């Protein structure tokens, strides 16, 4: 709690100190500095409400504190499922959107816009409806080889557990990934590739050696965002989970309805910590890659 308090309070205190420095000065220039520090203070208040207030409430609700260890022990499978399904879905989304954006690079502007619109449109389908559509579509004998645990392939144990859930996550977030990667790829200047091609490099070599490293910050950012969105997605998980493949939002949702507050707090804290860790690590990597590219 002290750490969380310090984390929230220190930036606000610095903002207030910034305000105090300019308080005594009267002319117009400092007036704008004063209003800026007021805005910083208000922004800190918003940050305090979300996410720190939620985390503080979860920490205060965990009575006794060792319940965190017990909950981890009981829900070990759900924690693993969350990490595995989110990672698999994020990897697929990033890879597919990268390949799609690469495939559209040489299309005309009109074709690019049409394809992008077509890929964005499924976003306007609510996740609940998407889940029902996926269940109706994949619940047929033709997909037994993929979803049935006795399908005869080495992957069937995994696909029976996570297959439909990962497909749901990919369906949900692929439009976001496509827009993100397409925008990032459009920002890569064409003359870099032309310079590489003029030195006799093959097109694929130019793509791997020049374009891909320039896109790494965007790839990292997209992976982090999709991972966090998949890990906390509830609407799809409620309908698409299979026995043995439940992710953390489902026990949180179910236990909240039966009033198990301490367990819910411990699980929520675990889920928030998982997502925040992935986001923070990949954000650092993103910033590092961006500064490295700028430096180069």
């Amino acid at each position, binding site marked *: 709690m002290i750490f969380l308090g310090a984390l929230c309070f220190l930036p606000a205190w610095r903002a207030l100190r910034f305000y105090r420095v300019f308080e005594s000065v009267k002319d117009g220039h400092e007036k704008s500095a004063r209003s800026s520090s007021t805005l910083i203070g208000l922004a800190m208040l918003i940050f305090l409400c979300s996410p720190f207030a939620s985390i503080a409430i979860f920490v205060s609700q965990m009575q006794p504190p060792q319940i965190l260890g017990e909950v981890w022990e009981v829900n070990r499978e759900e924690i693993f499922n969350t990490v595995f399904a989110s990672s698999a879905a994020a990897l697929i989304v990033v890879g597919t959107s990268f390949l799609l954006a690469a495939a559209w690079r040489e299309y005309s502007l009109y074709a690019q816009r049409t394809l992008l619109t077509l890929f964005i449109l499924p976003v306007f389908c609510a996740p609940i409806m998407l889940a029902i559509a996926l269940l109706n579509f994949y619940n047929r004998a033709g997909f037994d080889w993929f979803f049935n645990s006795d399908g005869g392939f080495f992957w069937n144990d995994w696909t029976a557990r996570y297959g439909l859930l990962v497909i749901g996550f990919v*369906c949900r977030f692929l439009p976001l990934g496509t827009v993100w990667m397409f925008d990032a790829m459009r920002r890569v200047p064409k003359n870099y590739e032309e310079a590489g091609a003029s030195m006799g490099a093959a097109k694929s070599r130019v793509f791997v050696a020049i374009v891909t490293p320039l896109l790494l910050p965007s790839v990292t950012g997209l992976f982090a965002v999709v991972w966090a969105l998949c890990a906390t997605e509830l609407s799809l998980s409620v309908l*698409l989970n*299979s026995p043995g493949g439940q992710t953390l939002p489902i026990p949180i949702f179910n236990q909240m309805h039966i009033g198990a507050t301490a367990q819910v707090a411990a699980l929520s804290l675990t889920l928030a910590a998982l997502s925040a860790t992935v986001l923070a690590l990949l954000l650092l990597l993103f*910033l590092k890659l961006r500064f490295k590219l700028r430096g180069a």
Partner: protein
Amino acid sequence: MPRSRFDFLYSACFTTGGLCFLYAPLIQLLGAALWEISTTNPARFLEAFPIAPLPRVLFWNTFWLSILSAFLALIFGGIVASVLARRSRFQISAIVLCVLPLAISPTLAATAFLAWTRLPPARAAASLAATDTISINSIFIAAPVLALCFYPLVAFALAAARRAIPMEIEDAARLFSNPLQVNLRVIWPLLLPAALASAGIVATLSMWEMGAPDLLDARTYSVQIIAISAPSKIFSKRLWMRFR
């Protein structure tokens, strides 16, 4: 267009595969539903319109929840964006702090709110009976919770738009007016498209959100769908029995 035939084939196949993957389940669901209703009981189409009491309540709840969430997210996001857009020593901290709410899903935020206020969750109060009408208070509770989860979307969009406005425009306007007038008459109209777009995204996400409104007793379309289709996880069980 792609230069070689292989490139064209690769891109055409990959794009078509992606489109089929995204659209096939939706087209099948909507097509089957439309076919079934139009062949068996066309009068059921009227249930989709907010005429009967229950669809009307669901429609207005969903509408007001999304509008209020978007409005609040615009206020919160606007304040945070003004910090993000400035190149100050707080910028990196503000970016990190603004990313963190993405780790708290609306369900977790609603859970925290219920734990803080010690209110029972909606389903425990048996509020999902079909004849109940919702009190407006639950919308006023759910909207701030959703806005506090989704404001980073508005903040990042507005900050990017604010940074894209050339400083010369602002400087020129400042020669003739005070900062408030400059913000209201010059900057805000330029930011309006970004503000409306991001508020629209927040409204849409709020409209679709199921976990938080369900816990907070704000009965929207999503909550109603889940109340009808998944109280006993009928779909998952059926699917699993078939595949096992």
